[in-house]
């Protein structure tokens, strides 16, 4: 079955998320830092009347943070009724991917903190890592997400 995905890059690697889960893709604007938050939280931005938290996927994937460039994008996702922005290095492509062709993540990569990988798919000789959004936040992070909101 083919499904539409949005492709984006973080630290040179291409990732894919289902476009049904993506609300919009925005230019990176000024992010306001919020003190005393989990390490992967970049801050908040103002989007159409809403304050949206921004997560740095570089940080989340344990890469060194780099300053935003004009290619940086905010992939705004809907997750369990929440709106969250994922800061990525670039997001320029839509792709229709055959979900049957998604290969399981290689054993050697399976670790507790990469459960967010649904699998790997090859497209034009390039590997794309397919992300399982709900798993993007590991156990503690999920807890942080599900603690009662103020």
């Amino acid at each position, binding site marked *: 079955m083919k499904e539409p995905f949005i492709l984006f890059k973080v630290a040179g690697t291409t990732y894919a998320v289902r476009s049904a889960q993506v609300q919009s893709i925005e230019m990176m604007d000024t992010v306001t830092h919020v003190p005393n938050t989990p390490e992967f939280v970049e801050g908040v931005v103002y989007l159409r*009347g809403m*304050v949206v938290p921004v997560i740095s996927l570089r940080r989340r994937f344990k890469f060194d943070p780099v300053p935003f460039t004009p290619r940086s994008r905010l992939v705004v996702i809907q997750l369990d009724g929440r709106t969250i922005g994922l800061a990525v290095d670039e997001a320029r492509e839509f792709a229709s991917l055959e979900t049957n062709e998604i290969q399981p993540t290689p054993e050697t990569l399976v670790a507790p903190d990469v459960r967010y990988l649904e699998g790997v798919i090859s497209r034009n000789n390039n590997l794309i890592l397919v992300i399982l959004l709900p798993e993007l936040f590991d156990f503690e992070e999920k807890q942080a997400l599900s603690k009662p909101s103020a």
Partner: protein
Amino acid sequence: MTQQFDSQEFLQDYRAEVADHLQSISKHLLALEDTLKPDATPVMILERAPYLEGLFRSFHTIKGLSGMVGLDHAAGLSHIVESLLRQMLKAEIEIDSGLIDRLLQAQKLLQTLVDQLDDVTAVSNLQPDMSALRDKIQMEYFPTEQEPLAASGSEAGKPEAAPTGQLPIPLPNILADHLNELERNKIIHSLLEGKRLGTAIFVPSPEKQASGMNVSEVRKQLQDVGDLIKAAPMVSGSAVSFIFLVALPEGVPVPIEDVVEWSFPNAEEAPAKLQASSDPRSVAVQQPGIDKQPAQGRSLRSPSVTMVRVDLITLEEIFQQVSELVVEHSRLKELLPLLKGAPTPALDTLNQTTNDLSRTLKALRKTVMSTRMVPLADAFSPMPLAIRDLARGYGKEIQLTLEGENTQVDRILVERLLEPLLHLVRNAIAHGIEPSDQRQAAGKPRVGHICISGQPQGEWIKIVVEDDGRGIDMAAVEEKARKLGLIEKGQEFNSSDALDLISMPGFSTQKDVNMGAGRGMGMEVVMRSVRSMHGSLSLQTEPGKYTRFSLRLPLTLTIMNVILVRSAGETYAIPQTAVDELIEIEPQKIVTVESGQLYPYKDASLPLIHLRDLFQFHFHPPQEEPASNRGPARMQYALINGKNENPLALVVDRLLGIRESVVRTLPDPLVAQPYIAGATELGDGSLVLILDLLALLEIFRQRRK
């Protein structure tokens, strides 16, 4: 496709502007449609011209904008509609309901386009629809011509050959009877360009002469701002006056109003008035002359002279400047007592003046605040068109009543109210109102009725959306909920749970998914937006009789004055009410003790808390101010909070000013913190965190322990 992302910014502007035009298109189309009804009076048929001109202008603008952002299909569609409207303006096509349907279809497609502009796939999916509609119009109305409009762009501005004899606007005979071909062309040209045509009558008088206003001066001043199409002398008895026909570009204020008497035969107030009327049906019988508004009593001035559009940024600046005035005024009041010993008469005058200033400032603040408020009608105005479309889509007959449109509410509320209202109306039409035959069989009037009303209740407004349809089947809701395991076995079903249940994502008792509603997402959206406005939602329903949703919302969203400060390279906002006094810290007065710092204040000493020490940022270490700013000479400021039992002074690096701000909550637990009261956006779209001073000091105290 990548192009789409890069032009994101343009697209936002495009979206805003086109959305405005689409709204005015829908208003004009509905008004135009009313002139087709069998009971339309001849006067109303004559009134079509301004609607057609408005439509022409809007589609013309959309065409241009769409071309600019590369949405060629939208440009093509607008282009053919524009040609159609030109034919209608020239009365070369009979206006009938089929024609209006085509225009509505175009409006709808463009609206869908604007709504889904962020979604590249949706946009490209719309393209075939737009082309199909364009071809259809071409087939139906321009079958013989290859390219009806021969051409885009350059041709649009060109004047058409003037229809001889008839003018699209009524003019006084003295002008109309003496127009030559060129002048007629100019008139039509001006209308097509969206200019306002006005006549100015100048009656010479010795006073006007004395101030230099003679005929040639008037002529000159008119020519300076607009196109002078025709001038003619008028003689009555022994007096001579002059009449000028002028085309004013859009947005240009009416010149020399104090010298000449203006009237605007094609003024745009007609559609605006119609819009204000509550019932789309009553629009048809309402004639401009017998409008409820005291229009006849006033001069012939167009309302555009008394209404000014101001952009929000300017308004925000005004708010801010008024707030600053308030602060400066309070400083002045503080300084006055220092003048003790000054000569009494001078001091009395100064005191008196300061008091007068207080009063004026208070009034000014109130007036400025009121500019934030807009009538609820702004939120209701898209409803007639939406309901008309949905009613057609579901094959239902529906009458709409709007009440309480004049209630003044915060403009932000109006903005956010639109979406939940549309969802509720959709639900009412899709699920509430029964088909006419069913209604008749049940002994109800064939035509279903939806009422949207707003009633102010103190600081709140209650907005009710009610339909007289089949009501919500509680048994079905219960059955579905039990099936989904949402109600535990043995647990009783409480009808007040119903609202929560139907507001759950994906919960729908409908078997079929249909166009407007029924995917079970609508109520969730309503619930979410009502909560985001700090309001509440309630439901009353009686099977077979009615469904009533009530939204209770604050009249104004939380607006507060905040002090903007800077600490360790970050900007924060602190509610002004939490701060009793601002002082400058003199470093040599700081007393450092083992557990912290003390600072003399009045007769006591205050513990100093440095904002920069309270926060930890993982992203970047707190930025040190440039070295030149440091050292003992550098000034710091403290915000004193003495209201609680243990007064404290919060030290910041810099004070940036005071501004009135709309508080936005930080609902997401990822960023929610007890000492962050919310965030407010600055004019440039960036956010500033609003700190809850008391919660902050609490943290400090706990850390001490």
